[in-house]
């Protein structure tokens, strides 16, 4: 929302400098994004939050300034509308479910021409292009008071009838700025006896717009239903100043005043005479409502004791007509219809707090017991840190890559995109699919680093999104890595070490893949966490020395080393470790460590075990000891 200082000053005396004013307004919730100089004026640009339709008007912003400055607002003149001098016919069929209030009037014998300089200048300052006096007046009054309004060329309303209705979908509509739209279903429109002439709350129709020949106008000031306006506006990708106000909820009590202001300006700037009674078709009276503020609750929520007289004065500065109900320790307020964001007690608490000043609050830390019970969705970051530290200590650097990938990425990795979770409305084709593996990102990262590094070791711990469709979608943390400088056995050893540290006994071989000059690994970390066992019990160190022995065997090459080691170990609980020392063709040498926790092992003890090993290996694998 753009607001020139000169325009604001018309309604409120401002003593603060523009910079101070901007800071104060930001503090009370009217975010000041920019203050700039233009000619002889200062232009403010504000960010308006979705709860405050009233701030999409100069008068609304002036009210906030008045509350800050403790000043009274000076409203523009709103003379009563005089009796009609004639009565032109018009039938209005409103439907309160889709158009809760419809206020309007006909003015005849007007002269459409250029607006006076002051009006054109004001519109230009806020970025609007002047068109003609009638259109400019409706824009001006909307900006000033915050209720959008629209002027129709009365003579172009066929059959002198206005039917407020909803579309079936697919209807064509040409807007005042000559753009043709195909309307979605349930858009609220006005039809005359033949056609759609207005897309309510968003844009007027080309076919009923004000032209230089227009002599008679019908001015409509409506209340629209926010959700209908928003749905239509979103479906069409069409937004306007009016739709921004209506979707936030317009001032339901402001239509008559808005019409009065508009009529006054039309008669002054375009001449003419009132040619109908005032139409005000409405679902209800739209009166202000009462809201109570309990002083003890105010203190309880804010944690600061604001004296009662300050509370009253703040509420009064916001025109909320506060009244202390003495025997109840509460303040009763009356909420003007333009503040439809004030619905519950907490809303009033915020009003008091923001004008009192958040930065005057003392700061505390929560009292009371520190919760001990483990929460749902608990995550142990210590464990994650431990895991990541194992990887960094082995030379792997951590990366974060995007969860979203392109169809090419998916297809290149050998997946069918049809079986990968997809985004309906991706920001681009590059980021359309949810990754089901982290390997794709890691491989890209490796290639990216190749020109600058010889040794590349990267890992990522992040989510993968599994399942072929949403019905069986599942998220899991994957732990994946890539290396162009480590061997298969170094990666295997790293994962074995990781598993040892986590108390897991799985064999990680299946998680590792060699591809060309790189090794890639990936594991489902979420699943792995289900198996971890971090309990440790101290085992006393052995009292008796171990005996080492190297055993060379002649054995069929096809027999897996892992199986041989396992078989050797199984022969005695006194064998505490077996490893492969060397292998050459059919000869394999194993390093065996014997130890007995209950006593010294004699040569005889060891040779008995050795004989058992040799016997088993011979019968199972046909192995013989090399002499």
């Amino acid at each position, binding site marked *: 929302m753009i607001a020139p200082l000169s325009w604001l000053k018309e309604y409120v005396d401002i003593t603060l400098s523009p910079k101070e004013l901007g800071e104060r307004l930001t503090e009370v*919730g009217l975010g000041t994004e920019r203050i700039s100089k233009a000619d002889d004026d200062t232009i403010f640009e504000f960010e308006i939050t979705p709860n405050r339709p009233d701030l999409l008007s100069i008068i609304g912003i002036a009210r906030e300034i008045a509350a800050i400055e403790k000043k009274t607002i000076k409203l523009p003149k709103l003379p009563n509308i005089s009796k009609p001098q004639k009565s032109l016919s018009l039938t209005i069929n409103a439907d309160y479910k889709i158009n809760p209030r419809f206020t309007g009037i006909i003015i005849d014998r007007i002269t459409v021409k250029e607006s006076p300089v002051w009006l054109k200048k004001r519109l230009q300052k806020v970025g609007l292009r002047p068109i003609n006096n009638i259109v400019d007046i409706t824009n001006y009054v909307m900006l000033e008071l915050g209720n959008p309004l629209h002027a129709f060329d009365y003579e172009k309303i066929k059959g002198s009838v206005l039917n407020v209705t909803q579309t079936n979908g697919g209807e064509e509509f040409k807007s005042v700025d000559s753009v043709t739209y195909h309307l979605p279903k349930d858009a609220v429109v006005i039809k005359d006896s033949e056609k759609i002439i207005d897309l309510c709350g968003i844009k007027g129709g080309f076919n009923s717009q004000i032209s230089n020949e227009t002599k008679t106008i019908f001015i409509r000031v409506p209340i629209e239903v926010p959700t209908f306006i928003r749905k239509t506006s979103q479906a069409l990708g069409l937004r306007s100043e009016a739709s921004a106000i209506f979707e936030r909820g317009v001032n339901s009590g402001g239509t008559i005043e808005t019409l009065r202001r508009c009529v006054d300006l039309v008669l002054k700037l375009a001449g003419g005479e009132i040619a109908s009674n005032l139409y005000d078709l409405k679902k209800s009276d739209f009166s202000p409502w009462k809201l109570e503020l309990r002083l003890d609750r105010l203190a309880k929520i804010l944690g600061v004791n604001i004296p009662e007289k300050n509370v009253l004065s703040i509420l009064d500065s916001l025109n909320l007509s506060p009244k202390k109900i003495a025997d109840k320790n509460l303040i009763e307020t009356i909420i003007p219809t333009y503040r439809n964001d004030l619905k519950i007690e907490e809303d009033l608490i915020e009003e008091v707090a923001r004008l009192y000043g958040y930065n005057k609050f003392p*700061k505390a830390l929560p009292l009371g017991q520190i919760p001990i019970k483990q*929460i749902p969705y608990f995550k142990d*970051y210590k464990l994650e840190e431990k895991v990541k530290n194992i*990887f960094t200590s082995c030379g792997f650097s951590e990366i974060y*890559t995007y969860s979203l990938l392109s169809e090419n990425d998916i297809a290149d990795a050998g997946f069918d995109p049809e079986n990968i979770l*997809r985004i309906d409305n991706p920001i681009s084709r590059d980021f359309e699919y949810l990754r089901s593996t982290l390997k794709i990102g890691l491989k890209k990262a490796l290639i990216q680093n190749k020109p600058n590094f010889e040794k590349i070791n990267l890992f990522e711990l992040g*989510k993968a999104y599994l399942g072929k*469709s*949403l019905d069986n979608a599942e998220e899991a943390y994957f732990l994946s890595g890539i290396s162009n400088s480590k061997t298969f056995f170094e990666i295997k050893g790293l994962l074995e070490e990781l598993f040892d540290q986590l108390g897991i006994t799985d064999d990680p071989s299946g998680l590792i893949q060699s591809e060309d000059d790189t090794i890639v690994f990936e594991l489902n970390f979420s699943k792995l966490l289900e198996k971890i066992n971090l309990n440790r019990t101290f085992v006393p160190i052995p009292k008796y020395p171990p005996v080492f022995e190297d055993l060379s065997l002649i054995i069929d090459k096809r027999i897996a080393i892992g199986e041989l080691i396992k078989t050797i170990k199984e022969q005695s609980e006194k064998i505490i470790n077996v490893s492969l020392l060397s292998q050459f063709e059919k000869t394999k040498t194993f390093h065996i460590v014997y130890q007995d926790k209950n006593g010294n092992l004699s040569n005889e003890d060891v040779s008995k075990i050795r004989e058992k090993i040799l016997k088993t290996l011979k019968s199972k694998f046909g192995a013989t000891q090399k002499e």
Partner: protein
Amino acid sequence: MGEELIGVKNSALSLILDCDNLKELEELKLQFLGRSGKLTLLLKELPKLPLEKRGEIGRLANEVKKTIEETISQAQEKLSNQNSQNKIDIDTTIPGIKPDIGHLHPMTQVLYEVVDIFKRIGFQVADGPEIETDYYNFEALNIPKDHPSRDTQQTLYVDTRNSRIAAGETLLRTQTSNMQGRIMEKIKPPFRIIVPGKVFRYEQVDVSHGFEFQQFEGFAVDENIKMTDLFGVIEYFFKKFFGEKTKVRFVCHNFPFVEPGAEAYISCNVCKGKGCTFCKNSGWVEILGAGMIHPNVLRNVNIDPNKYHGFAFGVGLSRLATLRYQMDDLRLLTNPDMRILEQF
């Protein structure tokens, strides 16, 4: 006498092996093998032994003498080698050989620090889904369908092809606030929780916007939680994270799931408030949205808003990381270039 010989041998060997300079070694040699050395004196006793024992003890004595001599000469050799090595001039200005270790990502380092700070004031850490329902991401948070505040969080929706789920109901969470409803419907107050995680927006990418970034949500509910506690917790966090001199300023703001609502600004840690590109020359950086949890949100999870109050806040973790390390582009955090990673 045999035992005495062994005793001399043991004491000689242990002294020789412990000795770390040539001069002392020379003294030890005299002490044992010299004209009046311990072993020499013992050997002089040899002729006094009965004839039948002389052979055996004689052999033992020779062996002991030989062992001591050999050990001394080995030690001499070792010590003189060391000496000569020490004498070679080493250019100690040559850089050391660094171990081959990797680097934790800056985002991770910042995240662990955040978790650590909040743990100290009784917060537990949770984690939850990124593929989320419209209900938890919006409706449970008092943001009904067609609410204008949805404009500030443009949403990516998950394709429902081959699925029985209705279109437009499943999305990628736009905020970690989705975990408020999920967690609070399962527990009773009091609780203090933070939830870090990835969030997604339908947003074109530039230096300060991304379609994927990291956030963390914090919330606490108890009988006596006040807005002053919210402000205190936020100030505590930023002073711990950016340093004690950091200033925190609050302004009013509207988020549908809090009332009253607030935003926090911190004094720019890059320019110390003087004005720079990180703070758009204002000296202040907008960094967090917060407020007292809206009664409707508490009602949605069956917590009585008359008995309990709470606060909630959300912070851009990616933003914290870029500010901490003065990175001028959010995208640096998802760039796997090792020239970036190796700086951390």
